[in-house]
């Protein structure tokens, strides 16, 4: 009888301790989850900002201005364009 009681007491203590640790674990993991969630939101915001930045830098108007003014690029007139037919035999184009 005493032995059974002792075993039960031991089991009870073990259960109690595991409850404490799992509760602690739960809280710790929850905090981690929260941090993860917060950084997800933060990264999402940053993504939006970067997208905004990308489309601001990559605006066709800006690209064109740089191409024309800094790189001095221009559209060739039709007379200087030659169209190569992809299906034509290659010797003919050489």
């Amino acid at each position: 009888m005493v032995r059974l009681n002792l075993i039960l007491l031991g089991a009870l203590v073990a259960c109690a301790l595991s409850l404490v640790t799992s509760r602690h674990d739960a809280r710790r993991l929850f905090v981690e989850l929260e941090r993860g969630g917060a950084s997800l939101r933060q990264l999402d915001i940053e993504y939006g900002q970067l997208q905004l930045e990308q489309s601001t830098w990559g605006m066709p108007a800006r690209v064109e201005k740089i191409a024309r003014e800094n790189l001095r690029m221009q559209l060739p007139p039709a007379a200087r364009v030659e169209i190569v037919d992809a299906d034509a035999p290659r010797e003919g184009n050489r």
Partner: protein
Amino acid sequence: MSRAATGFKRADAAGIPLPRFRAPALFGVLGLVFAGLVGRALYLQWVDNDFLQEKGAARFSREIEIPAHRGRVVDRVGDVLAVSTPVKSLWAFSNQFDATPAELAALARVLETTPQKLAARVSANEVYAVLAKQIPPEQAARAMALKIRGLNEQNEYRRYYPGGEVAAQIVGFTGDRDAGQEGIELAQQSWLAGQPGSRRVIINRRGDAVEDVAAIRAPQAGRDLALSIDSRLQYLAFRELKAAVDKFGAKAGGIVVIDAKSGEILALGNLPTYNPNARNKVARERMRNRALTDVFEPGSTMKPFTIATALETGKVRPDSLIHTEAGALTIGSATIHDAHAAGPLTVEQVIQKSSNVGAAKIALSMPAETLWHAFSDAGIGTPPRTGFPGEVAGRLRPAKSWKPIEQATMAYGHGLSVNLVQLARAYTIFATDGELKPVTLFKTDGPVAGRPVVSTQTARAVRKMLEMATQPGGTAPKAQVPGYRVAGKTGTARKLEGRVYTTKYVASFVGFAPASNPRLVVAVMIDEPSGGAYYGGDVAGPVFSSVMGSALRMLAVPTDAPVNNVILPPPGSEIREET
């Protein structure tokens, strides 16, 4: 108790007399104290419970808001057209704001303003003072780090439009509280809008959430929206339209680029326009998406529909001869004129040279009802249903009310009205083999089936006539594109003011290319060009040419003509039209 009782006995036994009421009195006092405690416990547990629960919860649990931003608007390849980013506003109750001069100076440095201005804002006769509106979160954090008493921050979102004025009328903008106010932002409010949620959590000593208690409201993140617009084409179309509107000193202008296979609107530009990022004091009329909300009399661009109807009914063949009465036809009390008097013209030449008399005579050979049905089938008088708010249907009066002169003028696009998108949509009939494609502003995948309106044979015949119109001997040689065969029709319509036709014009051009297998439909409209030039072929044609040429190259559409295909007529021999 029993021990106490024995105590008495012992005391008695010791012979010390105790007052007889001492024990009951002590009992009574202890009993009262006990009853008091029980009463208090009951009171706390039952009566005052709510208040205490609340106070307790406030110590360890907190309701946090879960933010939900508004969805992005992107173009067909995913480039951002509108995006929300979080910003913060700093505010204070005027009577609670308490900053030392040094703090105020520090705050002013962070906010890049002067202490005087800040002080003026707080001391203004308002309960609530906004010290900084929509500033970046980092800046707000530095301001809050000063720990000034009474200074509060508030999370907000700000919507940015990187495309600026180029796509302003399509995308629209948001107003107060991030709610759509114009354009797609308004039409798709429920799709784009996010619904912030909130939940209750248990916090620890440091204020971190440690456990979820209950979700009060699940957040609903705003969804992204992909438009059919192609940013590169949009910019290109806008740039060319702007150049033309500036060059000809026009009042307004519009341009639409439609994918002939899917009916998607790839570009839609309007002038005048505005910058949605800085729209204070912008006149309402600059915000209008004219290509969808304004109508005009299309003029000659309607002629192909008259001809197609006649071909369908079998009244004429493409090579039938039409006598153009030396350029003047009198119907009742009115006379129709051609800009160029010519002899007999074939039906093809009626389109190529844009003969009003020819088109009118062909129209009068059919019952009004037939013509009405054909125009209606081409989408005249029904809104284009692009998903844009406030688009209009144009006007096509019932055939019963047409007088002969009206039937004649409708043949060349007067007495009815359309918006530019409708006109471009109608031309998908000739760009396909006779199908009217549904047009949309939203991205769709793959080809979309249209509604068959005319036979394949008729569509191809008209396509050939439209190609002739862009060749020497036609009204629009300037619409030609190197390397591609193009087809299209000019319009030079006098504007109706009140009930009188003025000498103000609407120059237009609608066409498609490559003619061998049309990919794009482009419609250009220039409202009131000034300074002499006003013919559709001279004003709108070149815009079509440059937009179509660059667009086909960007989309890598194979050429269907040699690059030296552009032949312009010698000066002085251009064919022009009236309407």
